[in-house]
């Protein structure tokens, strides 16, 4: 069964929480809602689940209009950023709780809770209370509760955000396996582009209550349809260069200019915005078209094998992410090189221009 949003929007008074959105999630697909905090991810999920009624448009599920149907009568499950379990029930009872409501017989409950616990490595903790578990185990319990009832739609609202790094990695690796042989639709909200890339599937970029782009994850990453989508789907943030093309040159700010050669030559004269991902900016020339930019270093972060350098260039804040250790001193002026052959070109309204 597929989930379809047709012009779904949500307004409250003068505030628009969600702009009218069209979105189709295929059966068995893994869909990612990618956006910063307050972009509208949770609201979008509530609209999909039926926890919130849209003020415009209709929600279709399996070819049926379910817009006004209460969440109680839809087969939906949800996992939250906070670890939500019934505090005074054992882990076993917690996992069994969605089945109890639907009057499944005891032997079947036992079998399904057992399978779920095995899958999520909770078998030794079945008789414990949630408060006696670690954060990771609590979230696994919540996940088991969401999965045990074979919901048609599983919503995961930043389920890993409150976990520490190691547990997050661990659960992140397990997630695709959990859904591998299910035909439910999974919607996963996250603020981290890396998570989207790891999970694959489809990604919807969400910005200020608007879905700016939706498509296969790799496709959205490689070919953002506009500047906002590129900004949402880039970590560290994508570098932006407002340029003016005049004849054979791009002028960037006061005193940087570089040739608008090769594929850029076809562009008409005028104002454009170039987007260059951080890993295409490096202290040494690399790539097919390295263009020197002179920056003023703000912060240098050195990890074991990688340097992340934040600097200002022509009034814009840029980030360079490169291999090797480049201990640039903070406050110094340095020359870096942006590989313009990888640059994304956007017009004055922020729409992508394919070149």
């Amino acid at each position, binding site marked *: 069964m597929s989930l379809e949003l047709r012009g779904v929007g949500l307004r409250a008074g003068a505030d628009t929480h969600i702009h009218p959105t069209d979105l189709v999630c295929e059966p068995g697909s893994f869909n990612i809602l990618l956006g910063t905090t307050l972009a509208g991810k949770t609201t979008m999920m509530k609209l999909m689940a039926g926890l919130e009624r849209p003020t415009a448009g209709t929600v279709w599920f399996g070819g049926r209009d379910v817009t006004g149907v209460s969440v109680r009568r839809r087969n939906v499950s*949800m996992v939250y950023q906070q670890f939500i379990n019934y505090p005074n029930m054992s882990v076993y009872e917690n996992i069994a709780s969605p089945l109890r409501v639907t009057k499944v017989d005891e032997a079947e409950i036992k079998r399904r809770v057992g399978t779920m616990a095995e899958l999520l490595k909770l078998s030794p903790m079945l008789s414990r209370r949630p408060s006696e578990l670690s954060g990771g185990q609590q979230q696994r319990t919540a996940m088991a509760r969401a999965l045990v009832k074979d919901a048609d739609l599983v919503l995961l609202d930043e389920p890993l955000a409150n976990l520490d790094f190691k547990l997050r990695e661990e659960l992140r690796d397990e997630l695709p396996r959990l859904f591998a042989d299910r035909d439910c639709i999974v919607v996963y909200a996250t603020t981290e582009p890396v998570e989207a890339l790891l999970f694959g599937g489809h990604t919807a970029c969400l910005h200020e209550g608007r879905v700016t782009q939706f498509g296969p994850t790799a496709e959205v990453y490689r070919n953002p349809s506009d500047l906002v989508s590129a900004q949402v789907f880039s970590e560290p943030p994508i570098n932006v260069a407002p340029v003016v093309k005049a004849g054979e040159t791009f002028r960037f700010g006061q005193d940087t200019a570089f040739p608008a050669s090769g594929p850029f030559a076809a562009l008409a004269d005028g104002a454009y915005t170039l987007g260059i991902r951080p890993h295409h900016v490096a202290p040494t020339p690399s790539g097919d078209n390295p263009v020197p930019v002179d920056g003023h270093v703000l912060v240098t972060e050195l990890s074991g094998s990688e340097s992340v350098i934040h600097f200002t260039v022509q009034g814009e804040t840029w980030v360079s992410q490169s291999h090797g250790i480049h201990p640039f001193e903070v406050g110094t002026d340095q020359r870096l090189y942006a590989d313009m052959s990888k640059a994304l070109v956007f017009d004055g309204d922020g729409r992508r221009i394919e070149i």
Partner: protein
Amino acid sequence: MNKTHDNRAWLFVLPVVALVAFNAIIPLMTVVNYSVQETFGDNVFFWAGVMWFEQVLQSERFQDALLRQLTFTFTILLIEVPLGVAIALTMPKKGPWVPVCLVLMALPLLIPWNVVGAMWNIFALPDIGLLGRSLNALGFDYNFTRQPGDAWFTLILMDVWHWTSLVVLLAYAGLVSIPDAYYQAAKIDGAKPFAVFRYIQLPKMKRVLTIAVLLRFMDSFMIYTELSVLTGGGPGNSTTLLSIDLVKIALGQFDLGPAAAMSLIYFLIILLLSWVFYTLMMRNEQQ
């Protein structure tokens, strides 16, 4: 890191010791002193041992007062805690009515205790009070100054009016601290309203309700002001709870020895029962 021991650190504790000694330990010791001695005036004291304690514990008067006290305390707990939770559940969680409800709820708590007693005394008078007059007009033979049953009814009604708000405010604080996601999760599970109350709201309110029960228990055991203004322990001795009885013995009859012994017994009962309550509820918490 090794902690260095320095006896001069005790100097920091001394002011507190002195303060506690003056406001708690020394007065308490005076009472202990009286409770084991007998005097015939002129500040001459004779050793009396545990005589007063035996006398108080064996006296029917004390036993009756204690029984009345326990009846009163458990009755108001049984009414105020469920009622307080019920009111808290019906209060709005957000919107412009929240402050209005909270202020209305807090109002009874802000009224001085003797005013509460005086208010209810006048309110319940059978000839001029609104409550007393109305009840009589409805055909009830109501007179709280003459009939013990009516006196108890008025006393409990007054305490419920005065103190349910405390339970409401505590329970409400517990309720609003439950994240919205819990309710959504219950909705998704298809849980009925009672299940939401039983498995989410009640467990989440447990801590504050423990505090509420403990506070109401201790305070109701120590009730004096409102009661003394409302009925003064009457009619007869029918509403003479422990505190009223104590004052009668200490100040009415000026029996310092028995009064001191009774104070200590009274104090130990509160301490013991509070401890039992607290331990039981905390043990429940851990299970």
